[in-house]
């Protein structure tokens, strides 16, 4: 059976790196969301919960479970979501 999106929740770990970890003052934050939430919805919730997240760009690069994703990507319980500063390898 399927539940309505409001009746269940999922919990994800948000990880921050490099310039973003410095700007936000955190490297990891646990966030709970309604079931079926997307990465874009997580970013909005993250900004509500963590005031220093205002320093992040509107649409940062994101990864879920070590893979790049779009903001429409749906989240699952226990996902690791990374908010990535502009890449500068090489």
């Amino acid at each position, binding site marked *: 059976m399927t539940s309505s999106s409001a009746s269940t929740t999922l919990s994800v770990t948000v*990880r921050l*790196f*490099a*310039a973003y970890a*410095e700007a936000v003052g955190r490297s990891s934050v646990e966030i709970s969301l309604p079931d079926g939430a997307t*990465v*874009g919805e997580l970013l909005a919730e993250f900004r509500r919960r963590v005031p220093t997240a205002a320093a992040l*760009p*509107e*649409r*940062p*690069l*994101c*990864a879920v479970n*070590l*893979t*790049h*994703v*779009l*903001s*429409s*990507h749906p989240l699952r319980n226990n996902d690791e979501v*990374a908010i*990535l*500063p*502009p*890449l*500068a*390898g*090489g």
Partner: protein
Amino acid sequence: MAYLSERALDLSDLVRQVQSSERGGIASFLGVVRAHHQGRAVLRLDYSAYHEMAEAECARVVAEAETRWPVRVALQHRIGTLEVGEVAVVVVAAGAHRDEAFAACRHVIEELKRRVPIWKREYFADGQVDWVGAADAGQGPA
């Protein structure tokens, strides 16, 4: 072998990993820390990474290149503090012929820059310390 390394990179080591008597062409690329960035004198760099993802993404980039061209690819990126003139990244692609070796080598360095979560902090001679690319806000998921 890990794609990220905290020790000095050795081009010959990576060449040996892919060299064989069936591979007549080996193309490689070294990225070296430059003394200047946008006109300012650089003293050194700190490279950091989202380690687990960087390893996974490097593996994907290498696997994709080895699928697209008949080559073997070796790749390493240095992490930690690098002095000016030191090697930050090495890509080696070996194939039967040079066309595929050059194409794969170029592809891997472009994809690494585009996809692998590595960051660098530049220490300038004037005392300033900047995250490279941090001023750009444009990029992100569509």
